[in-house]
């Protein structure tokens, strides 16, 4: 944005400078032509006689005119032409600068400047368009661009005698106008012909040299030409370029001369020139090159700083992210390990408790019969009365019976404890529960109603054998400890709490006083209901089996109201890790 602004600003600056330059050039043209006008005026007032228009009878002028021509370097010819168009006096400047009186006079009656001047009145001065000099009807070579100043001459009696003509050699003027150019410079006349063309010198004055193939300014830049003809001044931009123009109307330009202002003479001239500069963008760029360079360097420095800073930032950010990722990974690892450890710890706690339980069973339940046995044996050996010894036999039978039962129960228990690699499978709970229900007569004959609500979840990863055993034990308990005074039911329901699968088995049976028995509920050989058969093995086995597969069981009960067992299953994981 800044660079565009600088560009436009600089182009404006250049346009303004160029405008001044063009004004100066226009002034130079006017200043150069001023002497011609003054000199012509002088000669138009000169008292010529008819004799002066006789060929080669001008001795009296030769010297004065010769001196006058010497001082005016740009004057190439001074001539008198009679009213028939024949030259009667002809001073020329030769190539080497000498002034000579050319005796070879020519007829100019067909030339424009002659015709035009002859029609003018006594106070008129004519300035011709820029032209190429012709001698004997042919364009002189090398080309001599000339502007002719002329005026009609009258005798004292007011009789028209002929005309006076000064040829102004425009070569030097054109050269100086084309000096030190910074842009393409053109001078075109009112018809759009090139009078001067800095970029294509061969186009200059082509309308004289090669009128058939002339390609003037109007052809190369038609749009600009149109704009110029609409009397547009100053600078403007179109698709043909960026233009600075100055219009030079000769008549207007000399109006400030005393001669004209004071009405001593008036100028006849159709000359209207356009002085034109085409400012190329390259020029503008060239002039602000350093500016741009500085801007570029500053930008580069900024860019470098930004790149450096952002690079550092990115590196920092990457490092940070890397570090954070590392931390996250480590944390995840730690968390996983923590979860693993927690699960292992829990499992170990369970194992520890189970081992204690086992120890307890062995200590109490196995030791009791063996100590009794040894006591009995010592009593037998201490007795001499056979009749007395006979009474010991049933006692010994009782002991061996209880030891057998205990050993069998222990085997079941130990099998569960050792069964770390118990086979689990994805099992559908409904068919397993239904097949278990069919084992109980009280359910089949309708003594106990069973409500199943197994919609919330239907499958579980678990051991089928354990699941069957657990369900059978709990249903068996519910039936065994039902309240015969009530219409009995068992509700079995699956649901979820905190994404964990819950299985609840509820009855409206006798219930149990948990304040007394809660800590004993799931222990071996605990019985809580008098007069009802029960070995105290069922709940103990249920809990052991559940714990071996990471599940938990809890109980809620009110005496006389009923009991609900709530089993919470957890994902079986890290289980294999513990097998060793």
């Amino acid at each position, binding site marked *: 944005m800044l660079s565009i602004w600088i560009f436009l600003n600089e182009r404006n600056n250049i346009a303004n400078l160029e405008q001044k330059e063009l004004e100066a050039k226009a002034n130079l043209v006017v200043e150069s032509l001023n002497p011609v006008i003054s000199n012509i005026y002088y000669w138009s007032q000169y008292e010529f006689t008819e004799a002066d228009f006789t060929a080669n009878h001008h001795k009296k002028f030769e010297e004065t005119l010769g001196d006058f021509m010497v001082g005016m370097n740009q004057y190439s010819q001074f001539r008198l032409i009679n009213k028939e168009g024949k030259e009667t006096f002809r001073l020329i400047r030769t190539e080497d600068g000498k002034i000579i009186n050319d005796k070879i006079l020519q007829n100019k009656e067909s030339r424009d400047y002659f015709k035009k001047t002859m029609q003018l009145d006594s106070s008129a001065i004519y300035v011709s368009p820029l032209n190429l000099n012709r001698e004997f009807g042919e364009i002189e070579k090398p080309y001599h661009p000339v502007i002719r100043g002329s005026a009609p001459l009258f005798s004292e009696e007011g009789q028209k005698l002929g005309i006076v003509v000064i040829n102004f050699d425009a070569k030097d003027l054109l050269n100086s106008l084309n000096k030190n150019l910074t842009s393409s410079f053109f001078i075109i006349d009112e018809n759009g012909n090139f009078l001067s063309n800095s970029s294509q010198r061969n186009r200059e004055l082509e309308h004289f040299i090669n009128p058939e193939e002339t390609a003037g300014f109007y052809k190369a830049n038609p749009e600009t030409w149109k704009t110029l003809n609409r009397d547009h001044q100053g600078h403007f931009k179109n698709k043909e370029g960026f233009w600075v123009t100055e219009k030079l109307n000769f008549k207007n330009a000399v109006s400030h001369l005393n001669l004209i202002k004071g009405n001593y003479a008036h100028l006849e001239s159709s000359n209207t020139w356009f002085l034109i500069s085409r400012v190329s963008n390259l020029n503008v760029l060239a002039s602000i090159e350093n500016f741009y360079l500085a801007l570029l360097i500053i930008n580069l420095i900024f860019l470098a700083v930004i790149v450096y800073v952002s690079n550092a930032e990115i590196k920092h950010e990457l490092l940070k992210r890397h570090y954070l990722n590392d931390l996250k990974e480590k944390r995840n690892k730690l968390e996983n390990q923590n979860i693993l450890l927690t699960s292992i710890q829990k499992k170990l706690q369970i194992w520890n408790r189970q081992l204690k339980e086992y120890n307890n069973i062995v200590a*109490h339940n196995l030791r009791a019969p063996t100590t009794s046995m040894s006591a009995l044996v010592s009593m037998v050996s201490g007795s001499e009365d056979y009749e007395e010894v006979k009474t010991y036999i049933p006692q010994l039978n009782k*002991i061996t019976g209880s030891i057998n039962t205990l050993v069998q129960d222990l085997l079941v228990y130990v099998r569960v404890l050792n069964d770390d690699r118990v086979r689990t499978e994805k099992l559908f709970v409904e068919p397993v529960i239904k097949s278990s229900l069919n084992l109980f007569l009280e359910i089949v004959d309708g003594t106990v109603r069973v409500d199943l609500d197994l919609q919330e979840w239907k499958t579980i990863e678990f051991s089928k054998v354990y699941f069957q055993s657990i369900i059978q034990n709990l249903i068996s308990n519910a039936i065994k400890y039902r309240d015969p005074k009530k219409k009995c039911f068992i509700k079995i329901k699956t649901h979820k709490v905190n994404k964990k699968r819950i299985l609840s088995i509820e009855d409206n049976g006798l219930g149990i006083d948990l304040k007394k028995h809660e800590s004993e509920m799931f222990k071996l050989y605990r019985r809580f209901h008098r007069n009802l058969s029960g070995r105290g093995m069922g709940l103990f086995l249920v809990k052991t089996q559940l714990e071996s597969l990471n599940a938990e069981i809890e109980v809620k009960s009110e005496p006389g109201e009923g009991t609900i067992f709530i089993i919470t299953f957890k994902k079986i994981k890290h289980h294999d890790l513990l097998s060793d």
Partner: protein
Amino acid sequence: MTFFLIDDDQVFHFITSKTLKKINPDIIVEKFLDGEEGINRIKNSLHKQSELPDIVLLDINMPYLNGWGFLKEFQTIGDQIEKEVQIYMLTSSDDPEDLEKAKKFSELSGYIVKPVSKEELEVLIRNFPSIEWFQPNL
């Protein structure tokens, strides 16, 4: 002298009562298969304290009401008992947790690991009523 044997082990009942009879045929032995039976018998005798036992041998592990449960029930009726009743905890294991627990019950007079020998029973009888904690073989 009256003994209450509270234990679900009938062989223990047999052996102990036999041993007690040998020591002194006049000793009265009452047998209960669980804590509930035992405490009910005591509660029923509160109005006739002479029927209360002198010595109770109490097993820990029993159905319906275990030894600890019995002791808690006994505490609730403790101030209604005027007779000197000495309770000894019996256990088939030498579990130190049980021993610690036992020592916290002021109602207990000792802790005996099964089997209970004739000599130990003789000490109990001879020293009755004892103010010392009785804990043989430990």
